[in-house]
């Protein structure tokens, strides 16, 4: 069904929301709806100085690409981009970007929401907190709510 290859990038550098939307839509007159999701590092009211994002190189790209292709088969999409950063990220900075383009708004909303739910609890990334007071921070625990969010999509079995 999909006539495009999802654009998946794992990088330490920041991304440019407008440039990424442009890359998907420029010169096209067949796209009716573009949904973007930007995830940012929160400062937790001054408690955090940064997040450290660790990832599994190779597997991260492969897993996100696999699930992005599932999304492109499940919804009538015309473009799908996912960029996930790693390394040290400070409050207010971008962590993740997902863009879904479609003829139809609900397809774009659902595909972007689905891919974010996947990234939260299945993409091999781990977040560690750096405390503003210099004390050693903890690894962030996975949330049961994120598992539940993923279940509502009836994701195909892994592997």
């Amino acid at each position, binding site marked *: 069904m999909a006539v495009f290859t999802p654009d998946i990038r794992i990088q330490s550098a920041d991304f440019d929301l407008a440039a990424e939307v442009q890359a998907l839509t420029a010169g096209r007159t067949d796209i009716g709806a573009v949904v973007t999701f930007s995830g940012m590092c929160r400062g937790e009211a001054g408690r955090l100085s940064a997040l450290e*994002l660790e990832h599994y190189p190779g597997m991260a790209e*492969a897993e996100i690409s696999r699930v992005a292709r599932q999304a492109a088969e499940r919804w009538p999409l015309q473009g799908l981009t996912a960029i996930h950063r790693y390394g040290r990220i400070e409050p207010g900075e971008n962590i993740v970007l997902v863009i879904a383009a479609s003829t139809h708004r609900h397809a774009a909303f659902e595909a972007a929401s689905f891919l974010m739910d996947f990234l939260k609890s299945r993409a091999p990334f781990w977040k560690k907190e750096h405390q503003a007071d210099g004390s050693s921070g903890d690894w962030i625990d*996975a949330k049961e709510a994120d598992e539940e969010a993923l279940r509502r999509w009836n994701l195909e079995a892994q592997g």
Partner: protein
Amino acid sequence: MKLVYFAWVRERIGKAEEEVDLPIAVTTAGELLHWLKSRGEEYENALQYPDVIRVAINQQHVDHAEKLNGAREVALFPPMTGG
């Protein structure tokens, strides 16, 4: 076989990766976790609750029941917290 560790599994074991020779009796991901736990305090500490540890064989996320089948690379890590 190459083992790779991430996040607090890596920190508690004290290394990011290592090569191991598996006993013949260790054939599944779950059995690998059980065997590793016996290798010393740092492994015991990292793998105390094996159920929460996620396993990837050749960079594919698998159940603990999955056969290792002479895998090239097996990764152990906590539940993911991306996005």
